[in-house]
């Protein structure tokens, strides 16, 4: 099958293409810049005046695993308020804030996304996370496995295990849970909360006998040594606490210069100045990112309205439960690995704190100079549902729109934010970086996120519109692996994405102490814990693609 897309303006930052009109060919499931020899063109689309980008990639979105089902259960009214009665070859569903799996897949595709990554896969819950993602059609998937609050690793560090042994454990766990990256959430803090500790600073010794800093140093080194493309994915300490920017800065240094990705950094950029003892530290955080090239971040922008927060960070979720809206909250300790907390939340533009959170996110976007190192997320659903991305893009690209929204928020928040004076407007090229090229790069997906020869034909085409939000809401065409799956913002064909994983090499002798640990303490047999690749395909429903690691 050969498809020709002629006359479109390409935005392909991986190849430094910034809006040049170029013809593009899809040959089977791949992109070609030239017409294939000796093959006839089956379909030709004239897309003059259209904007062509690679399929978008959401590298931090909570779309699978037990906490999402808890959130769905707790958001019953929202589920019912957004019915999704599809028919024929499409499955029904519902929900706006935490949609059902099929609806999630359709809506991501309808916005031009072709890959999404679940950032909090608990090892014991990995099967369920993968099953939910397998039932999420249209998009490719992947998960980051949670480490750094598990008793096995904390004991290893506390007992002075070698870095090599830690590396073997990390590699073993990635293989056993079929994940592509490693995430640490409030290092040591979820574990400490099980001992009734309610706060933990980066250099404080936790009940496990180690400091969060040590956990970060050891894990970022492991990820680096194993050659895992995605840097250690870090949800830093003290989420949501005024003054937490200091622990965020400490977290950055804990990586000791190695690559590290700080997620939903907006929630970690708070100062304590002013009458409300709550202020923006976006400037300090952006400056730190600008000065340390080993750091990447995604923002976790909040949007005003109802949502629900679902996080592994039991310690800080418990702290936040008093602000639950509606008034209900769930906290779980999980299997000597981690935990989860699920709390509904309503961000109000007339609340000083919420209004400032909104401004802080945008301030970070605008003040980080390099769009390759600041990625576009709302930490779905924690800051806002993923369907608010087109609105967020408009806020970044259109200063007068941004200032209009700013002028309606809590007046004191307006006053203390520098946002109004910030002139920067993101370009389409920069949006293509932060939603395509950069996430593909930091995940190690070499054939995604760009429009070069041989790339997977994941392509999103927008009709140029004055209203950028409208434009990004409804692409006119989306191709997934070369198949036309969305037309005029509606799914027209169902496809099944692949699960991206890494399998770094490791010394199998780590299985001996692990087996003993499972026999002595765990409630699942060691042999039943590991998810084999054929189980992924046969029982879970997610075929895997392995991405290479380069041992360092």
């Amino acid at each position, binding site marked *: 099958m050969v498809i020709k897309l002629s006359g479109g303006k390409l935005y392909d930052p991986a190849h430094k293409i910034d809006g040049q009109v170029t013809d593009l060919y899809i040959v089977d499931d791949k992109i070609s810049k030239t017409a294939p020899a000796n093959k006839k063109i089956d379909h030709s689309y004239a897309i003059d005046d259209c904007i062509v980008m690679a399929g978008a990639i959401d590298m931090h979105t909570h779309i699978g695993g037990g906490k999402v089902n808890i959130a769905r259960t707790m958001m019953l009214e929202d589920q019912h308020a957004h*019915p999704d009665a599809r028919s024929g070859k499409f*499955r029904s569903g519902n929900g706006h804030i935490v949609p059902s799996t099929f609806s999630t897949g359709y809506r991501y595709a309808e916005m031009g996304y072709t890959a999404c990554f679940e950032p909090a896969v608990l090892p014991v819950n990995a099967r369920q996370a993968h099953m939910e993602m397998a039932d999420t059609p249209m998009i490719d998937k992947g998960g980051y496995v949670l480490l750094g609050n598990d008793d096995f690793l904390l004991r290893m560090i506390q007992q002075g295990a070698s870095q090599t042994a830690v590396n073997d454990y990390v590699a073993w766990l990635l293989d056993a849970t079929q994940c592509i990256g490693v995430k640490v959430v409030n290092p040591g803090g979820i574990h400490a909360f099980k001992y009734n500790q309610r706060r933990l600073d980066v250099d404080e010794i936790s009940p496990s006998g180690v400091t969060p800093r040590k956990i970060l140093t050891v894990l970022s080194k492991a990820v680096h040594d194993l050659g895992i493309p995605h840097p250690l994915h870090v949800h830093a300490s003290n989420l949501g606490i005024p003054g937490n920017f200091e622990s965020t800065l400490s977290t950055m240094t804990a990586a000791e210069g190695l690559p590290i990705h700080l997620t939903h950094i907006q929630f970690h950029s708070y100062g304590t100045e002013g009458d409300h003892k709550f202020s923006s530290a976006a400037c300090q955080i952006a400056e730190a990112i600008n000065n340390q090239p080993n750091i990447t971040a995604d923002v976790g922008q909040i949007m005003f309205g109802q949502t629900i927060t679902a996080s592994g960070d039991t310690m800080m979720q418990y702290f936040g439960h008093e602000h639950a809206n509606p008034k209900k909250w769930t906290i779980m300790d999980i299997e000597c690995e981690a935990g989860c907390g699920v709390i509904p939340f309503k961000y109000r533009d007339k609340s000083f704190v919420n209004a400032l959170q909104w401004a802080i996110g945008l301030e970070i976007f605008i003040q980080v100079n390099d769009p390759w190192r600041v990625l576009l997320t709302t930490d779905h659903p924690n800051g806002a549902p993923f369907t608010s991305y087109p609105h967020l893009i408009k806020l970044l690209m259109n200063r007068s729109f941004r200032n209009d929204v700013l002028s309606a928020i809590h007046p004191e928040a307006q006053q203390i934010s520098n946002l109004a004076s910030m002139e920067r407007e993101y370009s389409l090229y920069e949006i293509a970086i932060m939603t395509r090229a950069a996430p593909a790069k930091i995940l190690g997906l070499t054939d995604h996120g760009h429009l070069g020869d041989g790339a997977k034909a994941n392509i999103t085409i927008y009709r140029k519109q004055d209203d950028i939000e409208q434009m990004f809401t409804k692409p006119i065409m989306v191709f997934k692996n070369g198949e036309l799956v969305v037309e005029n913002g509606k799914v027209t064909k169902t496809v099944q994405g692949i699960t991206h994983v890494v399998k770094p090499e490791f010394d199998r002798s780590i299985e001996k102490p692990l087996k003993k640990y499972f026999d002595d303490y765990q409630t699942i047999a060691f042999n039943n814990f590991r998810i084999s690749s054929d189980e992924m395909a046969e029982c879970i429903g997610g075929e895997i693609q392995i991405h290479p690691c380069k041992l360092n």
Partner: protein
Amino acid sequence: MQFNDVTCPHCGLLCDDLTVEVNDLSVQLKNNNHPLCKQAFEDASFNSGQIPSPLVNGSPATLQQALDAAAQLLKNSKQPLISGMIGDIQTCRDAVALTEKVGGVVDHANGSGIRINTSVMQRMGEVRTTLAEVRNRADCVVIFGAGVLENFPRLYERILTPAQSLGNDATKNKKIFLLDRLDKNEIPSIKNKGAITYFQLEAPSLDSIAHKLLEVINKPIEIFDEIDDTLQILIDLHQTILNSQYTTFIWAAGEFKSDIAEHTVQTMTQMIKQLMEKVRCVGLPLGGSRAEVTANQVATWQTGVSLPVAFMSGAPIHNPILFDGMKMLQNKEADTLVWITTYNSNDNPPETDIPTIVIGHPKMKCANDVDVFIPTGIPGIDHRGLACRTDNVATLPLKSIRTSQLASANDVISQLSQLL
């Protein structure tokens, strides 16, 4: 042939350390002598040549004939009910898809049991924990109702009295309190469980004990005018909890009085959340012994809502009053029943005079009495599969350890869907 690390899907704990001997079509549990577990595995056995055939109105039929007959019944149906839902993940996935396709209602055989915890989760959220966390972290355990230990046979051995524990002496030798009402018949097996402090309290019900404990937790002692033995025990228990590192409340909603169970589970959550202001306290609701957790997890992610789910309007709707499967049958609101049950030959559909299709366990007792019976393999014996544990977190693999000619339930259901 002998298989190790076999998962047992017959109670919500999903113990996966079983050794099972398979000879031709007979299956025998080797390393666990609990009568409930042993019996459940024996139920899967049969002799060679006894593989049952599908039945249409009690007469042998080919699989295709049975599928055609089932499809015809569903085509004629205006309000089908898909229930039972006692199966592995894939069976539940295909059953939800079938329900959507026929615009029916899907519920679990024990839907009313699922609802109790779901509605508390919906209304106020919960504080929960998982099995390994209790095993390693808990130094104090409060069990509500002796039936918990009967119905989850290996809870005591595997979780409450572990040979080793990650914590310290206090987490290895847990303080275990069992609360129940006085007039309940003595349960002999408790006597062998030496680590348990068994309080049989003067109280009308288990529920009332829970409510009393909440009062003790919430109120200063001075407000009680008279402190009788029961109250004193609860006051002391409260003190013990306040002095412990990690207290776990264990209950099974099925042990409470059915009409007020939801209120009692809410009381459990209130107690835990109140105690959390000072100390660590968590809940471990037990259930899922008929694969309730598996069915509800699948329904929740696929449809966005918990069981029961109705598809009449095209989009999934959850309404536990309107779409309670058992009530729909009683009130004759369903006109065709698809009953799916794969683990146990005794899980018969409720008595009903509407056309009934049974897909499931090859030895179903009801096989001759229903309109269509399609025998299937048993997940974890004949087919690979996955099952969700009582704590809603762990998913365990079910192995294929026997070679039989039986189709899997999910295959049968998806073939049926294709005929519609």
